[in-house]
């Protein structure tokens, strides 16, 4: 095994000291001279309505008000908060039917919290007071909270671009019969020896990143728009704002502030178009827009909920001969990532097991909820909840051990991954299953917990998953990194990759240090500046270490090559015979050395000798870059084991232990990988047990706060064990695969299956609340 100097070590993360002191600056912490404050007036009392009267005249005269903005006061094209328009070619976007259906201020309210108009005032309080004086009259429209309601022929149309309110279905031009998959499913299913089938419900889960959305924007005297935001995608926001407001990219710049959690909530734009529109109304003055937690809740995106039907056919041998599925999700009021999640939900299904034939239909209908967008896992949690419970049921029918069945039938190296035609280059799932099973005591506990009769019953469950490392080849995977060696032999690495707390920047700096052969402390990572960085698609699809890391590695290799080429000239020795230690390059043959500092300084301070005119060395600063386009997506795998205790009288579930064994390829920064798995587990177990945004029949959110939306707290969490299985991937930088999103996925099925093991009932609706368990126990005659 290669000995690394930095990679694989949990060095102190590069950004945590300033986070520990609180000095780190998030968007809401910014204060600028002359700064004004924006306030959005939102429709709070209706989920579907027409604005029939908007009177801003009283608000405009309120103390401190500088400007009021209605729908007609905003220039700029309709937009889509998502970024799929930048990730696929235009003709593919057209085929998919991706659309721009959002405007800054609307006259057609499509969900509670839709933005009606804006106030700009000297203080936040003055803006709020003025907002109270805005007069809006609404004509209520019928409220649609399921696809089945909004697809009715007489339903009000959300947009003329999507007849029948079907926001998306897999297009026939790309997916024959509107289905993702392969083989003849009907034939295979008919020949199957037995099948399992059910319709499930998956919940509308909220990212709940701790930092509410906040922005500052300013238009300078040259007409240049500057936006400060905690987006996950500074470069994409830059491009999208430019396109929306018909500005050249050179007239826009985006500064990414420290990101207080993302999880998909900041994938693309949220409030940027609104704060930009406000800034354009008051040129020369910065405008700050801070969302309240309630606004963050009702007016930013969530996971896609909906009904998920699945049928799996098996041969007597246990072979999964066919899988057939339909995920019909409830889109919310706007299209956003309409095609994305509808597709990937099926692709995660297709990539998991050796299905003989596979057919997945994904479609999504407009509803009067807050729009659904990206949330960690991007369809994978939904599939895990459904697929893994059905596999568990089938294992029961077959009398197969769920671990052994999975080992036999999961896809592996050489099989097609989530994108047919792109095969798995590495897979350590068997080792994940073995080590995870050993850690939780699988065999003993499966036996021990069989036939319990008490009030409190234990169960253990398993679930597996595969995800992706970037979205190649479906979407553009491109990062540009630039490395500059300073005259004192320190180095700057410049790129627009995002750290949302997942530790990516530290890992990228480790890759730079390892590749250059420099100490971590001598490298500075310059990020968050859309203007000085080259292109980067942004943080999505768990790509940052895999794609961004490859860009950094390649740029650093180029810089190192230049450094060695110069050393070769100075030392009169071929570059391939040189070695470097402590930033001194040594030629063994001649026993001569030159320091990196000397090479760099002689290039930068390249003085001509006054007498001879001769230069002091090889001229020029060493700067290298890489514009890296991914050629693969090396999916990670994981096996998760959960132990629970269910109270058969109350339906209460106590989480006892969770073991997450993750095939990470190589852990660049092991503590960060563990942190992502542990944080993912909290969110995944929340999906399984407690988390769902609820609406009343008028479409008004019933739990827009941390008190009413239950996340698992420190005392709810079970003992967590993370096992990092390192089987270096042949493609990822230093063998790394992704670990960002994955942690959320497999705990969902593992917890659901542990409950099944404990109680003998499967709950088809997530989250699995005590009420649902009691109802199911009663229905199955298992009540205590």
């Amino acid at each position, binding site marked *: 095994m290669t000995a690394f100097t930095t990679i694989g070590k949990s060095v102190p993360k590069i950004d*945590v000291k300033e986070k*520990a*002191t609180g000095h780190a600056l*998030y968007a809401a*912490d910014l204060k600028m001279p002359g700064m004004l404050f924006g306030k959005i007036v939102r429709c709070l009392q209706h989920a579907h309505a027409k604005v029939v009267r908007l009177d801003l005249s009283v608000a405009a005269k309120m103390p401190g008000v500088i400007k009021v903005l209605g729908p007609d006061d905003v220039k700029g094209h309709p937009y889509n908060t998502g970024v799929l328009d930048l990730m696929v070619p235009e003709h593919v976007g057209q085929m998919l039917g991706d659309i721009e259906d959002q405007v800054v201020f609307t006259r057609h309210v499509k969900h509670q919290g839709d933005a009606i108009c804006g106030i700009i005032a000297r203080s936040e309080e003055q803006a709020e007071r003025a907002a109270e004086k805005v007069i809006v009259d609404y004509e209520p429209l019928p409220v649609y909270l399921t696809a089945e309601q909004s697809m009715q022929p007489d339903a009000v149309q959300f947009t003329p671009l999507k007849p029948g309110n079907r926001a998306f279905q897999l297009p026939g031009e790309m997916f024959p019969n509107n289905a993702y998959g392969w083989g003849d499913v009907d034939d295979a299913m008919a020949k199957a020896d037995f099948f399992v089938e059910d319709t499930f419900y998956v919940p509308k889960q909220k990212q709940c990143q701790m930092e509410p959305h906040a922005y500052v924007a300013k238009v300078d005297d040259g007409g240049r728009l500057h936006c400060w935001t905690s987006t996950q995608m500074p470069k994409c926001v830059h491009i999208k704002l430019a396109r929306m407001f018909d500005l050249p990219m050179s007239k826009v710049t985006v500064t990414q502030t420290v990101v*207080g959690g*993302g999880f998909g909530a900041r994938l693309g734009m949220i409030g940027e178009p609104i704060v930009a529109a406000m800034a354009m109304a008051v040129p020369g003055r910065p405008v700050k827009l801070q969302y309240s937690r309630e606004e963050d809740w009702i007016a930013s995106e969530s996971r896609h909920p909906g009904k998920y039907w699945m049928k799996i056919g098996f041969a007597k041998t246990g072979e999964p001969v066919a899988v057939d599925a339909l995920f019909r999700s409830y889109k919310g009021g706007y299209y956003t990532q309409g095609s994305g999640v509808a597709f990937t939900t099926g692709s995660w299904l297709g990539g998991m097991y050796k299905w003989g034939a596979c057919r997945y239909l994904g479609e999504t209908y407009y509803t009067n909820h807050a729009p659904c967008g990206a949330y960690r896992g991007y369809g994978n949690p939904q599939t895990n909840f459904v697929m893994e419970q059905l596999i568990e049921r089938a294992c029961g029918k077959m009398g197969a051990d769920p671990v052994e069945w999975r080992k036999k039938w999961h896809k592996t190296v050489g099989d097609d991954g989530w994108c047919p035609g792109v095969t798995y280059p590495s897979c350590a799932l068997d080792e994940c299953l073995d080590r995870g099973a050993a850690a939780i005591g699988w065999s003993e506990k499966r036996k021990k917990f069989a036939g319990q009769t008490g009030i409190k019953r234990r169960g253990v469950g398993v679930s597996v998953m595969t995800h992706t490392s970037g979205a190649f080849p479906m979407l553009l995977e491109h990062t540009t990194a630039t490395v500059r060696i300073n005259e004192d032999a320190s180095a700057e690495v410049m790129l627009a990759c995002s750290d949302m707390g997942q530790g990516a920047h530290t890992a990228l700096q480790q890759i730079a240090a390892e590749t250059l052969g420099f100490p971590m402390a001598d490298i500075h990572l310059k990020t968050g500046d859309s203007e000085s960085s080259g292109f980067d698609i942004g943080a999505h699809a768990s790509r940052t270490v895999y794609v961004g890391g490859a860009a950094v590695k390649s740029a650093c290799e180029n810089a190192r090559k230049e450094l060695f080429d110069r050393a070769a000239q100075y030392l009169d020795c071929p570059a391939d015979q040189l070695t470097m230690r402590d930033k001194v390059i040594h030629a063994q043959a001649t026993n001569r050395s030159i320091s990196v500092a000397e090479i760099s300084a002689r290039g930068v301070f390249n003085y001509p000798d006054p007498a001879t005119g001769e230069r002091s060395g090889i001229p020029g600063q060493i700067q290298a870059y890489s514009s890296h386009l991914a050629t693969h997506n090396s999916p990670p795998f994981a096996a998760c084991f959960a132990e629970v205790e269910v109270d058969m009288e109350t339906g209460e579930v106590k989480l006892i232990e969770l073991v997450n064994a993750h095939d990470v390829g190589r852990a660049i920064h092991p503590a960060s990988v563990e*942190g992502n798995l542990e944080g993912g587990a909290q969110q995944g177990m929340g999906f399984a047990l407690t988390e769902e945004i609820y609406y009343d029949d008028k479409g008004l959110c019933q739990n827009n706060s941390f008190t009413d939306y239950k996340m698992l707290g*420190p*005392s709810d969490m079970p003992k967590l064990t993370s096992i990092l299985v390192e089987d270096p991937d042949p493609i990822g930088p230093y063998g790394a695969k992704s670990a960002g999103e994955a942690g959320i996925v497999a705990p969902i099925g593992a917890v659901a299956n542990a409950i099944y093991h404990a109680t003998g009932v499967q709950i088809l609706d997530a989250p699995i609340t005590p009420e649902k368990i009691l109802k199911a126990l009663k229905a199955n005659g298992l009540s205590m």
Partner: protein
Amino acid sequence: MKKRDITLTVNGEVMEVTVAANQTLLEVLRETIELTDTKYGCGTGECGACTVLVDGSKPILSCLTLAATMNGKSITTAAGLAKDGELHPVQQAFVEEAGIQCGFCTPGMVLKTVSILAENPHPSEDEIRHKLEGNICRCTGYAKIVKSVQRAADLMSAGKAAE
């Protein structure tokens, strides 16, 4: 809105501040005094990101505290824990144990930890988890935060032993 002048000691610095009757301590810290290390996470006392310490080790939620009621009090924020560029042992523990991810809950978590350890220098894991209930983190699953608190307890008792 009626205003009044109050005296606050913030991170050891005595200051006169004019506050409106309806202004929260969080607003005064962030906007008037311009100390942005205290975070707004919910504004309703549910997340703990705005935690500060009063008179050394009593944690309060600054978003629910009217600034006017703090006249004469001493307030410590996360920035005030570090001295001369040296992290407080609790902050050091969070750095060492990778108990920090996005960092938004961190100032509140660190201050809550100071209060937990002031009350009991050697808390059990259950006690730590119970006392952290008011501080929400969405990144870590609390695993490394709990380890950070345990590490902080070790660092602080080692520090005390050395004194």
